């Protein structure tokens, strides 16, 4: 087949892809996305997992190592079948946080850390470089196959030149379609659809070759089984370590490879597509693997020994003189390589521009005017240059290794490098305690070990590492030999590197996370990532900023483009109920704007840019925390103040009450003084009058006796009044001597009832008692207590105004304290007077007065205070009711109370 035809076919194929991508972009621009966002397209776009490595390399792998090639596809199968665990969460986080790449995911999770973005980007570039080289190599090899087969005898112009042409062509295609949109979240419909088409092409090509081999050359499935038994492949024995290790590695790689993350998470338009992909993608992988072994077996049989098994997919049809089939296979291989390179280049370029170029530019411009010039153009240029750079790196690696190594080996090196992100990623989405320091430590250590044990040795002895270093370790330290760390010399080099890099990586990550304390943004982001299903509100990282909406609009236009930015601002303004383009810069709005921007330039950069445009007006989370701390302090302080002022107003209220009472008392005292004067003057008047009469000598004897009697009685009344006053002052001063005695309560009440019988003997009083409850022995000054009882019973007898006065005496011995209630059925005491009845000289009315001076209840109260008890008025009993409460045993006497019993007075009233 002429070389020109081959080149023409390639060109036609690429033009066809261009047209597909172009038409789809047009449709998408018109808003007709429809089937472009179907689960089928999504699943097919995932097929970039199957690169030229799968297309050519799997057969070579099978020819060398039997069924081991299946591990590369079984790992992803397990991941997809278990999509509910990891993929669902990754996709949800990617959508909520508008993640643009795997570096953005890690950076955003660990507090929008720029340094982590740089680390992951560098790792991804380093790990992808061999893989891109692999694609260039396979395309170049496939060209070479046709060149050596050609009868016209043309020679392949130059392998390196071919590789350059391929790399350049891919770069142009990728730049054209991969960097049309800035916002990665706007999704590259054109590219994705082109990739889906390529997925179909490579599947059809491989299946066609497989069907031809099985039914055309091997004589059906049974023939294939026989041939497998005969071929050298059946000598293959499963190696448990590699079997499990490679399955794990491929499972990790499908999650961590930058290009897989791109199609899996970033380009995902609907979470439900994942459900379909969970079985459809494994099915695709199965179909891709189905004919690998038959092709390898037949190839080994019919091709001359020494033929490169990596190219059996091409050489077997050619050997069978099927030029058309070989062309189809060639195109399949070509599409495998191109689709992988395109997506990988887009993913890597996004990472490089977002995490390295733009932050660098922002830092360099920091001193100058904030955000001058078109950021959009800067980012796009950075991406285009990055795409070219990535392909150039791949090409360099290809030149450096000379394209000699087997395809499978190169691919696995790349996988192991990409897998270093796994601990930080899994820890990031499942463990809130994972911190930035831990992630940095883990990533750096894992990456270093990968470089040392796998990547650098892959250049061969004396490639980058000297043979002596490989054999004896650095400085002759044997336990640091690159391929036998810590004396593990018996291991397969790949497994060795995988084990140590991931073990040390995970260890450093966990220890680092446990020992360090995350910053505020980190903790917010950790919660948002781990609890992604439960969260509603945003991170709330922005305060009500003074940033002008206009400034923000200008910046957003530079990043998003004029129309999308204006549409976004208008929608926000409408949502706030405002007309026009300028919404209020509420924290929610700024937060949404940040996410929107982060969809274009990455979380860390968007954060930095917003901070820059708004100058110091945008509140950082650290500042917010500080403000919150201050607020908490102020709130605490004001709470204290409030408590204090409440206390003050309580005191003021008490003072006011006391003052009112004092005023009342003063009025009462004045009233009493006039009353006592009257009280004292009445007997004094009669005494003086009768003694004057007595001074008249002519008075008859019996009259003398009578008048002397009157004088005597009045004198007694005066004495009693004075006695009462005296007693009260003694009691108040607490100088009274208590005479402790034991007595039965019933006896005491009996005595009181009997003694009060002499008071107002004309009035009848029915007394109801509760005898069983009165059977209590009290140990107190029983005489004083009786005095109180007598007073109360007498009062009832004197003042109860009911038609048939009844007094109920209810005793309640409870615990160490006894209460005795005296309740009559009169009208009781008005509420306003209740506070005063225990005061000295208080008498409610002058009616019914029976010689008392209004000191009785005051004396009662002082007695009870001296006995350690209380006497109080009991309202709401249907009559006057007094409650006497006292301890069963008189407490030990406290030191003499010298101050007047103000406190008790207040309490009792």
């Amino acid at each position, binding site marked *: 087949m002429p070389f020109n035809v081959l080149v023409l076919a390639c060109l036609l194929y690429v033009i066809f892809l261009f047209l597909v991508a172009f038409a789809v972009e047009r449709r998408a621009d018109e808003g007709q996305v429809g089937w472009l966002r179907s689960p089928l397209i999504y699943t097919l776009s995932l097929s970039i997992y199957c690169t030229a490595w799968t297309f050519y390399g799997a057969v070579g792998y099978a020819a060398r190592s039997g069924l081991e090639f299946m591990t590369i596809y079984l790992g992803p199968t397990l991941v997809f079948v278990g999509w509910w665990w990891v993929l669902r969460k990754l996709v949800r986080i990617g959508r909520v946080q508008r993640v643009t790449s795997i570096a953005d995911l890690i950076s955003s999770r660990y507090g929008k850390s720029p340094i982590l973005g740089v680390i992951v980007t560098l790792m991804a570039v380093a790990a992808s470089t061999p893989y891109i080289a692999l694609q260039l190599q396979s395309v170049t090899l496939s060209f070479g196959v046709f060149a050596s087969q050609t009868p016209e005898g043309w020679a392949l112009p130059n392998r390196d030149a071919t590789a350059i042409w391929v790399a350049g062509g891919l770069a142009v295609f990728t730049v054209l379609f991969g960097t049309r949109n800035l916002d990665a979240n706007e999704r590259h419909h054109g590219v994705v659809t082109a990739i889906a088409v390529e997925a179909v092409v490579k599947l059809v090509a491989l299946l066609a070759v497989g069907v031809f081999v099985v039914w055309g050359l091997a004589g059906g499935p049974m023939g294939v089984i026989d041939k497998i038994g005969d071929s050298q492949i059946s000598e293959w024995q499963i190696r448990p370590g590699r079997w499990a290790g490679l399955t794990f590695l491929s499972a990790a790689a499908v999650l961590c490879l930058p290009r897989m993350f791109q199609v899996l998470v970033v380009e995902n338009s609907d979470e439900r597509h994942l459900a379909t992909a*969970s079985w459809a993608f494994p099915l695709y992988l199965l179909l891709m693997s189905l004919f690998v072994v038959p092709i390898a077996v037949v190839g080994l049989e019919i091709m001359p020994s020494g033929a490169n098994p990596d190219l059996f997919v091409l050489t077997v049809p050619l050997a069978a003189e099927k030029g058309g089939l070989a062309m189809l296979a060639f195109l399949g291989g070509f599409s495998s390589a191109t689709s992988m390179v395109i997506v990988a280049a887009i993913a890597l370029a996004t990472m490089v521009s977002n995490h390295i170029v733009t932050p660098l530019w922002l830092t360099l411009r920091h001193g100058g005017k904030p955000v001058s010039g078109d950021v959009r153009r800067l980012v796009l240029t950075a991406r285009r240059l990055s795409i070219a750079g990535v392909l150039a790196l791949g090409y360099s690696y290809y030149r450096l290794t000379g394209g000699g190594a087997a395809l499978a080996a190169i691919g696995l090196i790349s996988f192991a490098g990409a897998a270093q992100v796994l601990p930080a990623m899994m820890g990031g989405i499942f463990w809130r305690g994972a911190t930035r320091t831990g992630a940095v430590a883990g990533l750096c250590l894992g990456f270093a070990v990968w470089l040392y044990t796998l990547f650098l040795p892959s250049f061969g002895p004396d490639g980058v590492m000297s043979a002596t270093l490989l054999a004896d370790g650095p400085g002759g330290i044997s336990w640091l030999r690159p391929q036998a760390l810590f004396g593990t010399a018996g291991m397969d080099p790949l497994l060795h590197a995988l084990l140590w890099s991931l073990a040390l990586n995970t260890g450093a990550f966990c220890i680092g996370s446990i020992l360090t304390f995350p910053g505020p943004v980190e903790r917010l982001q950790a919660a948002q990532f781990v609890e992604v*299903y439960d969260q509603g509100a945003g991170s709330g990282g922005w305060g009500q900023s003074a940033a002008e909406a206009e400034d923000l609009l200008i910046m957003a236009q530079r990043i998003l483009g004029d129309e999308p930015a204006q549409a976004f601002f208008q929608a926000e303004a409408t949502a706030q109920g405002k007309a026009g383009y300028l919404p209020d810069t509420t924290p929610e709005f700024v937060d949404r704007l940040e996410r929107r921007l982060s969809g274009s330039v990455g979380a860390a950069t968007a954060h930095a840019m917003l901070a820059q445009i708004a100058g110091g007006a945008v509140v950082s989370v650290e500042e917010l925390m500080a403000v919150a701390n201050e607020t908490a302090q102020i709130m605490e302080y004001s709470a204290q103040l409030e408590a204090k002022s409440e206390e003050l107003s309580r005191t003021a209220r008490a003072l006011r009450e006391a003052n009112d009472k004092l005023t009342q008392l003063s009025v009462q005292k004045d009233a009493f003084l006039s009353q006592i004067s009257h009280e004292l003057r009445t007997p004094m008047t009669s005494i003086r009058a009768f003694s004057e009469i007595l001074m008249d000598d002519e008075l008859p004897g019996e009259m003398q006796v009578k008048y002397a009697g009157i004088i005597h009685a009045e004198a007694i009344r005066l004495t009693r009044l004075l006695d009462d006053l005296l007693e009260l002052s003694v009691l108040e001063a607490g100088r009274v001597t208590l005479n402790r005695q034991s007595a039965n309560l019933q006896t005491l009440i009996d005595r009181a009832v009997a003694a009060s019988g002499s008071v107002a003997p004309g009035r009848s009083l029915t007394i109801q008692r509760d005898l069983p409850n009165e059977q209590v022995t009290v140990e107190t000054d029983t005489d004083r207590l009786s005095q109180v009882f007598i007073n109360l019973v007498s009062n009832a007898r004197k003042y109860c105004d009911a038609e048939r006065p009844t007094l109920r005496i209810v005793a309640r011995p409870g615990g160490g304290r006894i209460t005795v209630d005296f309740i009559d059925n009169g009208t009781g005491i008005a509420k306003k007077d209740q506070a005063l009845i225990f005061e000295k000289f208080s008498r409610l009315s002058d009616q019914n007065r029976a010689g008392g001076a209004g000191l009785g209840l005051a004396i009662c109260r002082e007695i009870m205070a001296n006995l350690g008890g209380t006497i109080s008025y009991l309202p709401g009993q249907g009559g006057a009711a007094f409650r006497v409460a006292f301890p069963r045993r008189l407490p030990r006497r406290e030191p003499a109370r010298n101050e007047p019993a103000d406190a008790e007075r207040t309490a009792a009233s």
Partner: protein
Amino acid sequence: MKPARRPLFLARSSYRRRRLIDAARLLPAFGAFLLIVPVFWTPGAHTIQDTARDGLYLFGVWFLLIVLAALIARRIAVNAEVETGNTATRDQNRDGD
């Protein structure tokens, strides 16, 4: 996260849905077990057919996993349609039982 909002017992449909999700979670473990089995087969007993037999077994397991995953994904999708408009519940279901 808010225990108070999570009911202790569920209606039949929600219950089935959660068991379905359990199945989706168990499937990779089940698959991993089946895929590791060939490691323990004695090699060399029947040299002639070993590779073909292993290959058929592995492809069989692979296909079985795909079929199971398809069934589960389809049922989950159908249930999700039924519960449309109730996204909050759906989201909380992921770790509730």
